């Protein structure tokens, strides 16, 4: 047991920190996400920080997971914007590497790394949220046998409005049920029949989209894995979504708690609020060190330890408490969108409203508790 960076990790961290200091400009920090985020993502790629854990043969750095963890920590420390290609880098790319054809790898991987292709995810549907196996978007093989015709609707898709490609879970056998008969497709978002509509959310902005597919032709060479074997491929994607997710979440929470502490120092805190702030800081450290335990297991065995399964659950509820606590510290001004030219109230209102999505997106808290109960604790299955 040694909780310090190894000399090699410390060198990577120092080099990265120096690079961020000279490359992360205020323009990028404050710019609109779509443009500034792209610039930033390109810079990351040029410096070799995109696809750190991807194998070298596919343009990655073949770096250990610890580098990815350090990368996420340092990005949060510097308040850097997220990479616009997170879905490509974290989900589509690793899925193509694991299950894709040589042609798919050749066509997409380099462009995912360079941000030339932005990706989105077409999994959830109005009738298939927690239960992905209820997918109803159809992909019917045309008589010619060279393409599928896709019809249906996807929802809660981040980045779809700027995306070039979509990883899409479809039902290719209309007579099939649940996990069978699903096919995983790579779909060109610029193809005729793809219609993206922004989904205005509780915060007033549109971070997610609905995607409508009407008679969209998708060539059979865009199938990932086997026709009808889409469930297994989708599970690979979700495994990667949850892989080093813990570190990204912890990094975000750390940044929130840093702001919360600054706010408490500025506005003053009651004894009860001081206790609550200490509680959240303790929880943050606990999630951080649990991530480290899980990471150590991941690096030794290739599979993250089960203890990491609670990270998202804790983070989502903590983020809801932290943002509410901030509004409480603001007092009566908490309801103003800006106070005396200071945009702080608006920031926290936005964060608080947004946090309500945290316990729903990427696995609802109820589903996560089911997973822990059944797969980690081995309790009898409820379904």
């Amino acid at each position, binding site marked *: 047991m040694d909780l310090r960076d190894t000399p090699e990790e410390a060198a990577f961290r120092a080099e990265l920190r120096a690079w961020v200091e000279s490359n992360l400009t205020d323009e990028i920090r404050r710019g609109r996400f779509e443009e500034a985020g792209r610039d930033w993502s390109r810079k990351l790629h040029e410096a070799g920080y995109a696809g750190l854990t991807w194998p070298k043969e596919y343009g990655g750095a073949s770096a250990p997971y610890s580098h990815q963890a350090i990368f996420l920590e340092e990005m949060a420390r510097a308040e850097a914007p997220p990479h616009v290609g997170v879905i490509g880098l974290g989900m589509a790319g690793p899925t193509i590497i694991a299950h894709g054809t040589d042609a798919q790898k050749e066509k997409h991987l380099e462009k995912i790394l360079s941000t030339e292709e932005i990706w989105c995810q077409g999994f959830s549907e109005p009738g298939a949220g927690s239960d992905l196996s209820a997918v109803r978007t159809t992909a019917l093989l045309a008589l010619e046998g060279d393409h599928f015709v896709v019809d249906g609707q996807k929802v809660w898709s981040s980045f779809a409005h700027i995306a070039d490609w979509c990883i899409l879970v479809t039902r290719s056998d209309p007579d099939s049920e649940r996990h069978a008969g699903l096919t995983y497709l790579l779909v060109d978002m610029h193809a005729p029949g793809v219609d993206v509509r922004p989904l205005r959310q509780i915060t007033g902005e549109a971070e997610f989209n609905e995607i409508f597919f009407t008679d969209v032709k998708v060539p059979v060479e865009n199938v990932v894995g086997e026709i009808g074997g889409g469930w297994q491929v989708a599970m690979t994607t979700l495994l990667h979504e949850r892989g080093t997710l813990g570190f990204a979440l912890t990094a975000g929470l750390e940044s929130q708690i840093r702001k919360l502490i600054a706010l408490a120092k500025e506005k003053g805190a009651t004894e009860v609020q001081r206790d609550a702030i200490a509680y959240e800081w303790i929880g943050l450290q606990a999630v951080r060190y649990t991530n480290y*335990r899980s990471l150590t*297991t991941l690096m030794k065995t290739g599979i993250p330890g089960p*203890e990491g399964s609670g990270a998202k659950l804790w983070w989502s509820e903590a983020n809801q408490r932290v943002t509410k606590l901030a509004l409480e510290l603001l007092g009566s001004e908490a309801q103003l969108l800006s106070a005396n030219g200071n945009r702080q109230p608006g920031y926290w209102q936005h964060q608080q409203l947004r946090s309500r999505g945290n316990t729903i997106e990427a696995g609802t808290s109820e589903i996560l508790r089911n997973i822990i109960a059944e797969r980690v604790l081995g309790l009898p299955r409820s379904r």
Partner: protein
Amino acid sequence: MEFAFSQEQDELRREARSYLESNADAPLADLRELGWLGVSVPEERGGGGLSFVDEAILFEEAGRALYTGPFLTTAIVLPALAHVDDNAWSVELDGLVPHLDVVDKVLREDMTTVAAEGESLETMDETRPLGRLAKNDGDSVDGDFEPVRLRLLAALALEAVGVAQKALELGVEYVSAREQFGKKIGTYQAVSHPLADTYVETELARSLAYWAAWCVAQESEQHGEQAPVAVVVAAAKALAAETAVAACERSIQVHGGIGFTWEHVLHRYYKRAQWIDAFGGHAAKQREVVAAHLLD
């Protein structure tokens, strides 16, 4: 960065678990025979020459087995002495001495040692009475009390993790077997979800307790976050103690009536958890230390 125990440490855990499961009432002398006292004291001072991280495993396993003897108090005092001796030790904190009735000597906050004489008082946890020392003059010991206090709080956090883990295991075992309305009750989410919460909290508390143990072993400022060891230890004790109490309460609840009986072992874990939370300051008291560090 490597946050895992070594193979030797895992082996020590297996030995400790196997022994303590059937010897929760063994005399302290038997644990000394096994080499479990003075583990983290350098060899030239009569100790095992290992670290507090190794000792951490024993504290956790003692909590899991609800070991009854004065192991924890003896183990955290020994490193403060010039040489490991054969006494059973305890420590005085806030005027109270755990196990005063069975130990030989006591280390006080002013770094004097006295014979264990005084009045022993019953506690809710029958296996861990507290006592008040008689007014005797003591012998001085070199060094500060602070490292002793830090070892004590870290050890209590580790013990609490063992308690929480056992309460969780008892709950999981029970709801996997018990049937009502023709179904295993563990299939009901109102039953399984509280246990999932206990699992998450126990793993979080475990991480902090191990972090605290590592910081105590390093005897230096830890990495990353600029938090002194005293803050890390306070954080670990706060979370672990509350986690253990909640773990027992949820386990009692999912056990139903049997969990509320004297006959079932759960109430003993519940009382130990509350003892741990109280001694050296409840969770809210520990969080004051953290809050002062963050805000003042």
